[in-house]
C-alpha cells in the first residue's frame, strides 16, 4: 500500500507547479490541464486503493514522516487507509476530477485563471490531508487548510465587495468552530496523551463519561462550523459568491461534508457519550428542517441549492446521531454526486445567462440547454428522493429508521423531505419550464455549454442514477470501519462501550436494495415518505408550472411564516445585533478605557502628543521620561516586595 502517498501529494505538486509557473509559462489552458492531471492521478490511485481495501476490509496505517515530537508522543504525517477513509477519499478525488474538468470551461477567459486552479489544487491537497489523517493534528491541519482555501476561493473575485465580505464572514464563523475543535484536540491530548485515532479508541475506557462528552461536544463544535449547521450556518449561503465550481466542490460535495466525516471517523468517541450523540441528532435534525424552510422562498439559484446543502448535511448528522453511521456516510457519498451535479448544472445556466442569478427572471431554459436541463432534473429527482435515483436509497432509509427510533425526529425529517422536493422543483420549474420571462437580449445568446462542461454533467448524472443500487455494497464495505462488531482495531472494552452507545439503532433493520424498494412501495411508512416527496413536487408543479395556485397569494395569506422564512428565521439579524452592535459597544469601552490610559500616560505613557511637536527639549520638560522611570521604580518595588515578603 506504499503507493498511497501519491494521493495527497499529486495535487500538491500541481499546486506548486501552477503557483510557480502559472502566470508566466502555463497561462490559460495549461494550468487547468495540470490541475486536472494532478487530481486525476490521485483519483486513479484512490480508486485502486479503494478496490484493494474492498477485497480485504483491513486497515493500513502508513506513517510517512514524523512531524513534531511532543514528549512521548510523536505527531506524524500519515495515511490511515480503511474503508471509511477510502470512501471519503474517492468521493473527494473523483468528484473533484469532474469539477476540475468543468471548471476549465467555466473559468474560460478569467484573467486569474491560473490562480483559480492553484487554489483548487491546494484545496484538494488539504482535503486529502484531512481525510487520510490518522491523528487529530493532521486532521486539524487539513481542517484549517481547507478553511484557508475556501476563504481564498470565496473571495476569488476580490474586486466584488460582496465576495470579500462573504469570504471574511466564512472565515470568522469558521474560526468560532475551529477554536472549539482545537480545544477538543487539546483536551484529548491532555486526557489520553496521544492524538492517534486508534490509540484514542483503545484508551476510551480510561476516561470518564463527562470527559468523553466534553471532548465529543468540543470536536462537534468544529463540525458545526465547518459543515454549516445551525447555529453556525450563516456563512454558507453567502459563500455562494465564489465561482460556481467552488460552490460545487467545496461548499457542497467535500469540505462541508468534512464535519460529517470527522464524526464518523472518531465514531467510538461519539458513541461513548449519549449526550454527544443526542446533540448531533438534534442539531442535525433542526438544521435539516429549518434550512429546508429557508430554501422555500429564496430566489437566487445558487442560494436555493446552498440551503438544500445545509439541509442535506443535517440529514447526515441526524443519521449519525441515530447511530446509523454507515447510512450517514452513504448519504454523504450520494449527496456529493447529485449536489455537485446540481451546482454544475446551475453553473452551466449561469454561464449561458451571463451570471443572472434570479430564478424569477429565467424560464423555458430546457429549450435552449437540453443537456443541462435533463441532468439538472436527474439531480433534482435524486435530491427529492424519488426512486430509483440515488437520493431515494440514501435518504429514505434514514427517515424510515428515524421512525423506529424517535418519532419526533421522524416528523421533522419526513416533512423536511417534502419541503426539499418542493423547493428544488420550484427551482426546476421556474428556471427550465414555465413561462417565458427571459430578457430578450439574453435570450438571443443562450446556448448549450461546451463539451468540457456538459460531459462532467452527464457523468455525474449517470452516477446519481445508478449509485443507489450499490447501497448494499457500500454498507458492507463500510462495516470494518463503522460496525463495532467488525472493527478490528478496537479493544474488547472499547467495543462494549461503542456497542452500548449505538444501542439505539440496534433494532433498526434496513433490508437490501430490492426489498427496500418493495418495502417502500408497499408499507405505509414507505408510502408516506414517497407521497411526501411526490406531494412536494406536485405542489411545486401546481404553483409554478400550471400556476393554479398563485405564489403571491400564498405568501400574503401566510405572511408571518413567509417573512420568517424569507428572513432566514432572523438568524443574521440576531447575530448582527449581538456581535456587530456588541462589538461596537465593546470597542467604545476599550477606546475609552484605552485612551484614558494612553493619554494620561499612566500605563503606557505614549509619546504621541510630544511626538507631533517633536521638540527635544520640550520632551525632557514634559517629564515623560521621569514618569517612565517612576513607573519602573514602582514596578521594581512591587516585584521585589511580592517575592521578598509574600513568598
Amino acid at each position: 500500500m506504499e503507493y498511497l502517498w501519491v494521493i495527497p501529494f499529486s495535487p500538491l505538486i500541481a499546486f506548486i507547479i501552477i503557483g510557480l509557473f502559472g502566470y508566466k509559462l502555463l497561462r490559460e489552458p495549461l494550468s487547468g490541464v495540470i490541475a486536472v492531471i494532478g487530481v486525476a492521478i490521485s483519483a486513479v490511485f484512490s480508486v485502486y486503493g479503494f478496490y484493494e481495501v474492498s477485497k480485504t476490509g483491513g486497515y493500513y496505517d502508513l506513517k510517512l514522516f514524523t512531524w513534531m515530537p511532543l514528549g512521548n508522543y510523536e505527531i506524524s504525517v500519515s495515511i490511515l487507509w480503511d474503508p471509511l477513509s477510502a470512501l471519503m477519499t474517492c468521493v473527494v478525488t473523483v468528484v473533484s476530477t469532474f469539477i476540475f474538468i468543468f471548471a476549465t470551461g467555466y473559468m474560460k477567459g478569467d484573467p486569474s485563471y491560473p490562480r483559480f486552479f492553484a487554489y483548487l489544487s491546494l484545496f484538494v491537497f488539504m482535503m486529502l490531508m484531512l481525510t487520510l489523517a490518522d491523528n487529530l493534528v493532521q486532521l486539524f491541519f487539513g481542517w484549517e487548510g481547507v478553511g484557508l482555501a475556501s476563504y481564498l476561493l470565496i473571495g476569488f473575485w476580490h474586486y466584488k465587495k460582496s465576495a470579500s465580505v462573504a469570504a471574511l464572514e466564512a472565515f470568522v464563523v469558521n474560526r468560532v468552530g475551529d477554536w472549539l475543535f482545537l480545544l477538543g484536540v487539546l483536551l484529548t491530548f491532555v486526557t489520553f496523551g496521544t492524538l492517534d485515532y486508534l490509540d484514542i479508541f483503545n484508551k476510551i475506557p480510561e476516561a470518564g463519561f463527562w470527559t468523553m462528552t466534553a471532548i465529543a461536544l468540543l470536536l462537534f463544535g468544529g463540525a458545526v462550523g465547518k459543515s454549516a449547521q445551525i447555529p453556525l450556518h450563516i456563512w454558507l449561503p453567502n459563500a455562494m459568491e465564489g465561482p460556481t465550481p467552488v460552490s460545487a466542490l467545496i461548499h457542497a460535495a467535500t469540505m462541508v461534508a468534512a464535519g460529517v466525516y470527522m464524526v464518523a471517523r472518531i465514531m467510538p468517541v461519539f458513541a461513548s457519550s449519549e449526550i454527544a450523540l443526542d446533540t448531533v441528532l438534534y442539531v442535525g435534525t433542526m438544521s435539516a428542517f429549518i434550512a429546508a424552510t429557508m430554501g422555500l422562498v429564496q430566489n437566487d439559484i445558487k442560494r436555493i441549492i446552498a440551503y438544500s446543502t445545509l439541509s442535506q448535511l443535517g440529514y447526515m448528522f441526524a443519521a449519525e446521531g441515530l447511530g446509523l453511521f454507515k447510512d450517514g456516510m452513504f448519504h454523504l457519498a450520494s449527496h456529493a454526486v447529485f449536489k455537485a451535479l446540481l451546482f454544475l448544472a446551475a453553473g452551466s445556466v449561469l454561464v449561458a445567462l451571463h451570471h443572472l442569478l434570479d430564478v424569477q427572471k429565467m424560464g423555458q431554459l430546457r429549450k435552449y440547454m437540453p443537456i443541462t436541463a435533463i441532468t439538472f432534473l436527474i439531480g433534482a429527482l435524486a435530491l427529492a428522493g424519488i426512486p430509483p435515483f440515488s437520493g431515494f436509497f440514501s435518504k429514505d432509509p434514514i427517515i424510515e429508521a428515524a421512525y423506529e427510533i424517535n418519532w419526533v425526529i421522524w416528523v421533522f425529517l419526513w416533512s423536511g423531505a417534502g419541503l426539499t422536493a418542493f423547493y428544488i422543483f420550484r427551482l426546476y420549474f421556474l428556471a427550465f419550464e414555465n413561462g417565458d420571462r427571459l430578457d430578450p437580449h439574453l435570450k438571443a445568446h443562450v446556448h448549450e455549454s461546451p463539451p468540457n462542461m456538459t460531459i462532467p454533467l452527464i457523468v455525474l448524472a449517470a452516477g446519481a442514477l445508478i449509485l443507489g443500487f450499490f447501497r448494499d455494497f457500500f454498507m458492507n464495505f463500510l462495516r470494518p470501519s463503522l460496525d463495532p462488531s467488525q472493527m478490528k482495531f478496537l479493544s474488547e472494552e472499547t467495543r462494549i462501550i461503542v456497542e452500548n452507545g449505538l444501542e439505539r439503532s440496534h433494532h433498526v433493520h434496513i433490508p437490501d436494495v430490492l426489498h427496500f424498494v418493495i418495502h417502500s412501495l408497499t408499507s405505509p411508512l414507505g408510502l408516506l415518505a414517497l407521497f411526501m416527496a411526490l406531494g412536494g413536487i406536485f405542489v411545486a408543479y401546481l404553483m409554478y408550472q400550471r400556476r393554479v395556485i398563485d405564489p403571491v397569494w400564498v405568501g400574503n395569506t401566510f405572511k408571518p411564516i413567509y417573512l420568517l422564512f424569507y428572513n432566514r428565521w432572523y438568524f443574521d439579524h440576531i447575530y448582527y445585533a449581538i456581535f456587530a452592535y456588541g462589538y461596537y459597544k465593546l470597542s467604545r469601552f476599550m477606546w475609552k478605557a484605552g485612551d484614558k490610559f494612553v493619554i494620561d500616560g499612566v500605563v503606557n505613557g505614549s509619546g504621541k502628543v510630544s511626538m507631533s511637536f517633536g521638540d527635544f527639549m520640550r520632551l525632557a520638560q514634559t517629564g515623560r521620561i521621569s514618569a517612565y522611570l517612576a513607573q519602573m521604580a514602582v514596578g521594581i518595588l512591587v516585584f521585589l516586595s511580592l517575592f521578598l515578603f509574600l513568598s
Partner: protein
Amino acid sequence: MSVIEQLVSGLGLPNFNVLIPEIILLLTAFAVFILEMFSKNRRVISAFSITGLLISGIYILVIILGILKLILSPITLREASANPFYSYILNNYLENFVTLYGLYVVDLFSLVFKLFLIIGTIFVLIHIRPYAEAKGSYYGEYYYLILFSLFGMFIMVSSPNLISFYVGLELMSISLYVLIGLYRKDYRSKEGAYKYLIIGGTGTAIVSYAIALLYGRTGTFDFREIAQTLIASNTVDVGLIGGLILLLVGLALKASAVPFHQWAPDAYEGAPTPVTAFLAVPSKIATYAIILRVVVEAFPSLTESWGFAWALFAAASMIFGNLVALRQKSVKRMLAYSSIAHTGYITAALAAPTGMGFAALAFYSIVYLFMGAGAFLLLASLEKNEGWNNTLEDFKGLAKKDPVSALLMLIFMFSLLGIPPTVGFFGKLGVFLALIGYNVWWLAVILVVTSIISAGYYLRVVANMYMYEPSFKGKINVSLVEKLSLGVLAVIVLILGIYPTQIWTLTTTISSLLMAGVGR
C-alpha cells in the same frame, strides 16, 4: 578555580578555534569601519558586511550539523576520531568549548542562536541601504554599528558568567542607542534613542546591582558555580531573592516585558525601520536566549520563584501589549506593541520550567525571527515610498496596488497571529502545550484569550489591504531585491508552518543539553 588563578598559573592559551566565527565577525566589523572611511561605494560596504556574516554563518552551520551528527546518530568515538572533521568538532566543540578562561562558552545552544542571529542580521543589512538612501539619511555607521551590536549579542548568548553577560549586553545596547538615533533631522528618532538611553541605562544600573548582590551572596560570577553554591547552602534569603529579582527585572527591561516596556514603543517608532527590525528581532532573541541560560544554569534551585516571576511578566505583557496594540493607528507602533505581546508569549514558556518549556521558548524565539523581521522589513520597504506613513489608512487597498507586498504582509500577519499553516501557530502551540503540561492553566488561558484578541489588530491590517479601495495616493514601488528577501522570509514562515520538525528537534536537543549541562 577563579579566573585570576587560572591566568596566574598560566594554563596556557585559550582555545581560539571555537572563536573563529566571532573573529570573522569582528574582522568584518573593523574592515567595514576602515572601508567606510575611504570608499564611497555603498554597495561595496553592504556587500562586504553581508559576505562576512555569510562566511561566519556558514561556518557555524557546518559546525552545528557536525555536532548534531555526533550527538544524535550512533557514531562511535573511534569512528569519529578517524574522520578529521569529526575529530575537529569532538576536540573543539564537545570538549574544550569553554574558552577565554571560563568566560566564554561555545556550546550547541549558543551556536544555534548565533546562527539565527546572523540570519536575521543579514536580512536587516539587505534592507538598510535602500531604506536609508530613500530617506536621505544614509550613514556608513549603520553597518559597523550593527556588526558590533551583533558581536555583543554573540557574547551574550555565549556567556557562562555574569561578567561576560554584562559586557555583551552593554556592547549590544550602546550600539543600539546610537543606531536608533541615526535618522537625520528626525526628532522622533532622537527622542526614541534618548528614552532608550536613559531607561536602558537605568536597566544597566539595576543589572549591576543585581550582579553585586549575587556576587555578595555566592562569591562567584559563574552561572554553574552560583547554582552549586545555592544548592549547597540551600537557604533563601533577602540578598539572593533581591539579586535574582533585580536581575530578572533588568532582563525583562531589555526584553521589553511589561511593566518595563515603556521605552519600546517610542524607540521602535522613532528608529529607522530596518533598525527597528534589528532591535525588535535579533536583539530580542539574544535577550531571550540569555534569559533562558541564566535561569536554567544559575538558578535551577529557584525554579518556583523565577517561573512565577516570568509568568507575571508574561501575563502582563500579553494582556497589555495586545490591548494597547488594538488602539494603534500606526502599523509600526502596532507592531511595537505586538512585539511586547510576543515577549509575553515567549517568556510565558518559562512558567513551565521543563524541557518542553525551554524547547518551546527557544523554538518560538527562533521562528519569531522570520515573522517579526519580515513584518518590520516589509514596513521599511513600503515606507520608502513618498508619503507613506505606515498608518492603517495607508494599507487600505494595498492588495490592488501591490498584490505581492499585500500577500507577504498577509503571511506575516497570519504568522504573528498564529494561524496555521504558518509557523506562528507552532510557536504558540509549543508554549501552550508546555504550560498545560506543567498545569499552569491560568497562563495558558491568558495566552489563548489574548491571541484571540490579537486577531483584532492583525486581521484589521489584512482586511484593510484586501477589502477596501486604495486610499494611498502615491505610487508603491518595492524593489525586486527587497521582494525577494521578504519572499524568502515568507516562504520560510510557510515551510516551517508545515514542517517545523527540524527546528523543533533542534530546540528540543538544545533544551535537553542545556538542562543536562553537558560537559560543564
